[in-house]
């Protein structure tokens, strides 16, 4: 856990936030406030019968951990206050969750906790803060600080990153310089890596330009650019590209069919590569909206690597008649599941289409992620109803395509969710 994910006893966390929100900070805070949400959720998951994890568990039950259905409750509290020229912001989540077949688990965390102010024409922030960049919806190559996981099933409060940030704004230009994870150990990877990131934003009429740069302690330099263009009253087009020197990834040290005696997957640095996104949104007068995005992601395994992976999945069970213990084969199959965590994109080339309709209080949406290389799909249908204080969300997600498509190999093949949120 990061240095700012404070593990405090729940009552202490609650009291801290309530005090911050209601006590005017030694009687000097201006307009302190406290608001938040209570969420009740239930996610039902159906485990698939294909893929290496399903094979592993079929051979040796419970060899591979697979996310089960969960039900839980979350309380999110947010507060902000100003003390002279310094603003204090904090948000925290208290969560209790019951996973099918497990005991309930209670957690608390600060999602954000930072101070902010202004000096010499620059805005500054210090602490744990959500900083999201880039222009895409389903894929954001230049989200260099937050590195948010996209296409999650139901919306949830983001956890910020520990950072120091300076920003300068004028009418059409914004500069942002962020030192993210300043206290993180060198071993930190991905979003946990200590890095310096910068963004230059320029508004030019119907066009928004962004330029990005990031230098990580061990991933070195990456550069990016993005643009969003309102082409007409109804149409917005966007694109984003990033070129990187290295990326944190996982690689398997074993090729071929022979079982391994140790986990062959290890963290490593990839070589140079690119991530490219193009997309657009069309919205009608009646609030029907169509989003289309396509992207290429060099951080994902290549087609050849997936072919080798599939071949190994098929070859490993053939060792059973040769006297290799079922537990060993099952373990090797379970390790194969680590390929799913190599990148946020499973396949390098992806197409995403989302059709939505906002009608009064109702938002209905249908989206499909399609991987052309193996014709895999993930289809999600969702509906949201927003009341005065209550919001109801529900949806279904199903994986489709040929049996050998990577998306069909994922352990969970069907999910349904329902979330009730009460805002105060």
């Amino acid at each position: 856990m990061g240095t700012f994910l404070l593990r405090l006893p729940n009552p202490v966390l609650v009291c801290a936030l309530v005090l911050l929100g209601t006590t005017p900070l030694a009687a000097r805070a201006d307009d302190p406030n406290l608001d938040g949400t209570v969420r009740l959720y239930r996610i039902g998951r159906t485990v698939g019968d294909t893929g290496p994890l399903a094979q592993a568990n079929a051979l040796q039950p419970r060899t591979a951990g697979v996310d089960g259905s969960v039900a839980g409750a979350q309380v999110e509290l947010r507060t902000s206050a100003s003390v002279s020229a310094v603003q204090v912001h904090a948000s925290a989540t208290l969560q209790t969750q019951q996973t099918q077949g497990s005991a309930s688990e209670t957690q608390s965390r600060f999602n954000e906790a930072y101070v902010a102010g202004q000096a010499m024409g620059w805005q500054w922030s210090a602490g744990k803060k959500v900083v999201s960049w880039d222009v895409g919806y389903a894929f954001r190559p230049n989200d260099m600080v937050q590195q948010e996981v996209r296409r999650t099933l139901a919306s949830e409060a983001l956890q910020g990153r520990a950072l120091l940030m300076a920003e300068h704004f004028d009418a059409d230009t914004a500069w942002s310089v962020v030192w993210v994870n300043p206290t993180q150990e060198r071993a930190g990877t991905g979003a946990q890596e200590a890095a310096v990131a910068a963004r230059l934003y320029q508004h030019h009429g119907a066009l928004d330009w962004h330029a990005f740069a990031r230098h990580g302690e061990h991933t070195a330099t990456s550069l990016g650019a993005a643009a969003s263009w309102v082409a007409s009253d109804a149409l917005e087009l966007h694109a984003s590209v990033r070129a990187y020197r290295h990326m944190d990834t996982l690689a398997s040290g074993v090729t071929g069919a022979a079982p391994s005696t140790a986990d062959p997957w290890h963290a490593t640095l990839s070589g140079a590569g690119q991530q490219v996104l193009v997309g657009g949104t069309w919205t009608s007068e009646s609030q029907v909206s169509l989003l289309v995005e396509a992207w290429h992601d060099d951080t994902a395994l290549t087609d050849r690597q997936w072919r080798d992976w599939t071949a190994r999945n098929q070859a490993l069970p053939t060792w059973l008649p040769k006297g290799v213990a079922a537990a060993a084969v099952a373990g090797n199959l379970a390790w194969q599941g680590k390929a799913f965590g190599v990148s946020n994109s499973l396949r390098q080339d992806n197409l995403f289409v989302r059709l939505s309709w906002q009608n009064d209080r109702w938002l209905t949406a249908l989206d499909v992620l399609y991987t052309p290389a193996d014709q895999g799909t993930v289809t999600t249908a969702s509906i949201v109803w927003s009341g005065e204080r209550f919001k109801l969300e529900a949806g279904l997600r199903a994986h489709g395509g040929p049996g050998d498509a990577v998306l069909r190999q994922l352990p969970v093949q069907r999910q349904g969710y329902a979330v009730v949120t009460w805002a105060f």
Partner: protein
Amino acid sequence: MISLSIDPSKHATATTATKSYGWWRHRSLTSTARSNVAVGLPLARRGEGVGGSGGKTLASLLMVATTLLLGTANAQDITALLKDADHFRMSADNLQVETQVTVFNTDGSQDKERRYTVFAQSERKSLVLMQSPVEKGQKVLMLGDDFWLLMPGSQRPLRITPMQKLLGDASTGDIATMNWAGDYSGQIVGEEACQPEGKTTCLHLSLQAQRKGVTYQRIELWIGKARHEPVRADLFVQSDKLAKQARYVMDKPSNPTTVTEMVLVDQLSNKKETRIRYLSRKERTVPPEWLNPMFLARNPALE
């Protein structure tokens, strides 16, 4: 502008102009001339047959010049009328307006209520902060024809199209836009009853959007004859469908100084009634950085 010397009998439009019932009539007629220019009618041909061939050219030129001048004058008049009408909603160039939006079902029951803080600034710049619990943290920035949205929790300003700004019973444009002058031009249609069944008369203005980013492409607006306060309006979207009908409630009907409430009735789908109440207005010029789209992700103290 009316003092230009032309022979009314030589110009069909000008002929009607002699039937002047009031100052507004002149404006109405000049607007006809302006529309002729706008649609590219062959104005010179209208002088044919009213003089000899030598004088024909001169007459035509005079008419073109007159028409252009009258058209310009009409535009100025419309702008002046719209500025007058705007003043009842936007009493200063830079305002902070606390707004309450209440939506009623067709049976009169309350459907929902929302609160907004609107920083309406000069040069068609507005920042809208959603204050109701269910949408707290949501922000919309409007810079002329350009729009951005920040959803709660995302911390990522999102460029949106004019169509996406139409969301909801009261669109962001309804809440944040309080100026017609500069966004619209048009013509004075005439003097009509302020309400369809009423006896009080108003000036009926027909307005066309001059910018692509406005919420409504066409507005039929009725304003008071004496003070030019807005009374009611028919609001048409880009496809020229009637989207909403608006009614403006003044603080003092007999001596209006400010619009206290705007009542919108949806005509496209649900026929719901939306009441936009202006709870308070105060002069407030926000720092320039607040109007930078990327600044939406920050949370400045409002006071």
